């Protein structure tokens, strides 16, 4: 009797990224909250970008503004998030790449 293979869930790439590639251990606790919020806003898929304001991230993570900014900087340094727009006064656009294995 053959059973159909379970359809790959959209979190597979995230699981691989966080655990198999060890990014979870390299991300600070606050940063993982920010990252999960951005990933969720991208629909749980990599290679997409999303426009999010600091206030929106703050509201969803209940972190302070400096903490969110610092977390975003850490995520950018790790290559997990790329901010593609830098218009002052406007919400940034964050691109979530699927970074290659180190």
């Amino acid at each position, binding site marked *: 009797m053959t059973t159909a293979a379970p359809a790959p869930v959209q979190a597979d790439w995230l699981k691989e990224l966080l655990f198999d590639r060890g990014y979870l251990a390299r991300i600070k606790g606050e*940063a993982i909250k920010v990252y999960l919020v951005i990933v969720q806003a991208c629909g749980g898929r990599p290679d997409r970008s999303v426009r999010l304001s600091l206030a929106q991230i703050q509201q969803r993570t209940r972190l302070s503004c400096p903490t969110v900014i610092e977390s975003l900087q850490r995520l950018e340094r790790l290559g997990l998030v790329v901010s593609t727009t830098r218009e002052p006064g406007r919400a940034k656009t964050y691109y979530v790449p699927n970074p290659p294995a180190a």
Partner: protein
Amino acid sequence: MDRYFFRVEHELLRSEAFKTLGGSAIKVYLVLGLHSDFGTGWSFPSIRTIATRAGLSRQTVLSALDELAAAGLVAIQREQGKPNAYRLLQPTPPRPTPSRRKPDRPSGPISFEEPPATGPDSLDQNRSSGQKSLELLSQFFDASGHDLRPKQETRTKPKHNAPTASVPIPGTPFQLTAEGRLQVTVDLKELLTDQGLPPRIAQKLLAQKDAEAVAKVLLNAFYLKSQGKLQNGPGYIRVGIEQGYDLLPQVADRLESRRRELQAQIRAQARRAERRQAESKADEEAAAIAMVLERLGPAELENLVSQALASLPAPLVRRNPTLSNPFVRARVYELAGGEPLE
């Protein structure tokens, strides 16, 4: 195993607990989800394993476990001589968010009847001076002058298509349209005779010239009178109509500023109407979608979401494995038309 990790994304993120939990607790929760047994839902990782996976110290892991247990997200079973067992619990469903309807705006169209507070100065400044023939006209200089309605439908009304929006010119019986044309709302013959012109000449002048030309000369006369510079009102009006005087620069400037205000009001009104229309359409669509979603079961809904996401076109970068630099990938994604999600 996947079940729990999948649930982290969809239910923990939406729950209130996600906001209150610390980052370390989230990391521990993810690790526990990774280690959960597919069949039973229990996981048995050691503290050291959790600490290594999450990049935390042992003490931080213990604190995070206590935090998760206190939040009701993890059940911990501790027995002497056995490894600790953890089971992820269903996060509290999110509280229904109140509908964020914007305060109702006035539904009716903006009335242009009331002159704006920032309107140009009234042409009335020296009402007391003037000849006897202009006394009757002084009523038009009153603040309520624009409330005077035409006593009858005059033949002097412009024959062309009358614009729908016009604004009264304070202190005069005329109205200004958004196109900059003058609209006459009173009987011009009566107006001219009130200025001291004989009815026969007034009739003759009105037959020769159109209403707008007459209105221009009358506006000039009103302005000159308000400045105390009009010595012979009837004579000025008669010659002005015959010669086709244009508006004085001072009067033209005030009319132009008034016209710009009117145009800005019309544009704002149109924008508001468009926005209202778009909002009502979006509300209708949202209500229809909500109605459909309510009838769907959770499993069916999940399946539909997965299908919809899978049907989206793959970005260009996914077909190009050579792009390893995330910055280049982001740029290529945008150039390929990948609009950011809102």
